[in-house]
């Protein structure tokens, strides 16, 4: 991609999209295919593809911190974390064309039917105003758009109509051992759908096993949203990079947005007008921009007559257990997962007849749990070598001791929507344009902690069945976020209880739409981006209808 140095606004635009992550990219691509004039305003830069290997090296070598791999940090990205739990915001997002998919892992699964009906099915949290059937066709299109390698071998997955666009990655050596142990315990394992090319796809190469998918895939084998942006650009979409939108301005009636006000790198301020505006700035910056866009008519921020913009911030929490075994586990060849189990998703309390004990609480006392079998357990030799204070033969000997017998399971645990977890503004600190920084106020509550403990218990049983000596565990006290920002502009039919309607248009403004996981009502425990993509395609249909 080459840079467009003209950063003046476009004339006569149908749709202005804010944010060039997967959500914004997919909306743009879909609308351009319907012959609408679309412009995307993106805060970060277009990264040069040729630098990817250098970024990969930075990610492996100590002395470069993780956010710096994609140039995150500094005044532009300043934030505060004020909740009971620290939130490492800049580890969890990337600003630039492609958005956070530049550093993501690329696991892409559909939410389960129950995720849309938590109130009806489990009697907790809230139901979505749409159900699985409403987005089911969009999931299929999203899988095509993201290039998913997967199989229909998951007995717990919701119904699907057609196979994935690419075959799944074959299981790893350790997957096979996990599968045997799980079978003895009555636990079914299955493949992981990956947004990663198991075969050449759409002109992009097949995965070659660099093993550094997260935070950098040096080839184009892992999907990132630059792929969609390129398609959208070919279809006529204009992408203006390095132009953070400062605020959205509405007309005198307060019913419609007139313009997105943005600043260029040389400090000029411009107004991009359009008929429709789609906010796709990620789960943190989307509510922040709404709050920053306060006006006389909307003193509490735009689209915020419910007072809920920024509220109900949710994350997925990591639960993990690992150990060592007396066989070679062959880890760290690739940087992605090939097997998992959703057996404890719809009912985390249920045990199995052959060895997983049932929980000592009801299903409703938990959140969904997804369990994964690692392909990168334990240390990688290069990581150890670069951190080591020995070298030569001594180093080789210590690497031989440390590498080879590690095994581990990971997993995600959902979090319920809680009003007291929120993204707000912190006026005591400003970014490089003088705007109050985002404030993340977050904690891990008891239900989530109980679910993490449950995940750990199942992991321990499986690893013990495999003969592992357990050496570490990430439980409720050590857990951290999976970097999935959800819930901050929730969807609903009641304008007093939600920010956007089921078509993802804000209740308050006729031409303002929101794409991304901020509209999620509940979190589930599936990585969110396939659902983000499906909702983006649905939103594009609604915007198209309105034009």
């Amino acid at each position, binding site marked *: 991609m080459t840079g467009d140095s003209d950063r003046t606004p476009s004339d006569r635009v149908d749709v202005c999209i804010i944010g060039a992550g997967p959500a914004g990219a997919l909306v743009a691509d879909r609308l351009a295919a319907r012959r609408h004039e679309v412009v995307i305003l993106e805060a970060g830069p277009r990264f040069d593809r040729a630098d990817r290997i250098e970024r990969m090296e930075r990610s492996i070598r100590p002395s470069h911190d993780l956010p710096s791999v994609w140039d995150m940090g500094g005044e532009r990205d300043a934030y505060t974390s004020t909740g009971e739990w620290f939130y490492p915001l800049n580890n969890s997002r990337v600003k630039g064309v492609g958005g956070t998919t530049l550093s993501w892992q690329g696991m892409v699964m559909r939410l389960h039917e129950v995720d849309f009906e938590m109130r009806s099915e489990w009697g907790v949290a809230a139901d979505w105003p749409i159900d699985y059937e409403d987005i089911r066709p969009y999931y299929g299109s999203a899988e095509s758009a993201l290039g998913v390698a997967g199989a229909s071998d998951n007995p717990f997955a919701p119904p699907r109509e057609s196979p994935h666009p690419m075959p799944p990655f074959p299981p790893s050596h350790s997957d096979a051992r996990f599968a045997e142990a799980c079978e003895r315990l009555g636990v079914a394992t299955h493949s992981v759908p990956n947004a990663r090319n198991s075969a050449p796809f759409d002109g992009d190469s097949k995965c070659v096993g*660099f093993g550094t998918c997260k935070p950098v895939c040096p080839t184009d084998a892992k999907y990132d949203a630059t792929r969609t942006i390129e398609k959208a650009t070919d279809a006529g979409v204009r992408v203006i990079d390095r132009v953070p939108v400062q605020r959205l301005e509405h007309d005198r009636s307060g019913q419609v947005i007139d313009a997105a006000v943005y600043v260029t790198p040389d400090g000029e301020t411009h107004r991009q007008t359009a008929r429709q505006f789609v906010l796709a700035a990620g789960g943190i910056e989307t509510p922040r921009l709404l709050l920053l866009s306060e006006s006389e008519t909307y003193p509490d921020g735009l689209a915020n007559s419910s007072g809920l913009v920024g509220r109900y911030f949710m994350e997925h929490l990591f639960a993990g257990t690992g150990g060592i075994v007396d066989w070679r586990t062959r880890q*760290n060849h690739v940087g992605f997962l090939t097997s998992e189990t959703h057996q404890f998703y719809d009912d985390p309390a249920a045990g199995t007849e052959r060895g997983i004990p049932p929980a000592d609480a009801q299903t409703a006392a938990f959140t969904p749990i997804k369990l994964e079998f690692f392909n990168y357990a334990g240390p990688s030799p*290069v990581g150890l070598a670069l951190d080591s204070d020995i070298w030569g033969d001594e180093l080789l000997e210590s690497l031989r001791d440390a590498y080879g017998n590690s095994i581990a399971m990971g997993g995600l645990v959902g979090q319920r929507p809680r009003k007291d977890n929120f993204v707000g503004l912190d006026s005591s600190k400003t970014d490089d344009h003088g705007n109050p920084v985002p404030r993340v106020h977050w904690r891990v509550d008891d239900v989530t902690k109980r679910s993490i403990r449950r995940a750990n218990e199942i992991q321990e049983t499986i690893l013990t069945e495999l003969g592992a000596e357990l050496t570490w565990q990430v439980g409720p006290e050590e857990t951290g976020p999976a970097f999935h920002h959800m819930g901050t502009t929730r969807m609903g039919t009641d304008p007093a209880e939600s920010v956007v309607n089921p078509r993802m248009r804000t209740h308050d403004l006729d031409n303002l739409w929101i794409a991304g996981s901020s509209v999620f009502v509940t979190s589930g425990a599936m990585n969110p981006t396939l659902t983000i993509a499906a909702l983006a395609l649905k939103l594009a249909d609604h915007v198209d209808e309105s034009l």
Partner: protein
Amino acid sequence: MRLTRRDALAALTAAGVTVGGGALFLSTGEPESTADGTAEHRLDESTVRTLVAAAEVLYPSEVEGTEEFVTSYVQGKVEERPDHGRGIADAVDYLDDYAVAWYDAKFADLVPSDRDEALERMNADTAAPDPNGSDVERVRYFVVNELLYGLYTTPTGTTLVGLENPRGHPGGLASYQRGPQS
């Protein structure tokens, strides 16, 4: 376990010389002047000699062919990333100054046990690698970790540990599926 030019090329692939940035000197393994005729970015012979001398103590004794490997690896990388090359050259200068001050000889002219001792004496073993740090932190980054990165992101280096397709090396999708015997 012999390192070969193939390994250097593999390491260079991991360092960006042949993937992403377009193929450079894959055909010969030697750095060439760039297509547009601008100046070559090469490390001088004495810098390379010093790096080879350092690799001889940093690499395990089972590794052979160090000279050819290090030469191809660092020259190839510097060709792509001139700033990085300047960092390496400066760190190597410091290493030589240090060796002259303590041992009255350039680093490459010391016997291996003295090279090992010199690196330890300056604390390159415990220093934090930092490309913008103190002299020793830069030696750790541009010499010690540079050379270890080259070795342990290639199959030759990590096969010694039992891993044929390490992080940072595009070794395909077959190895992760295989059990230890095959």
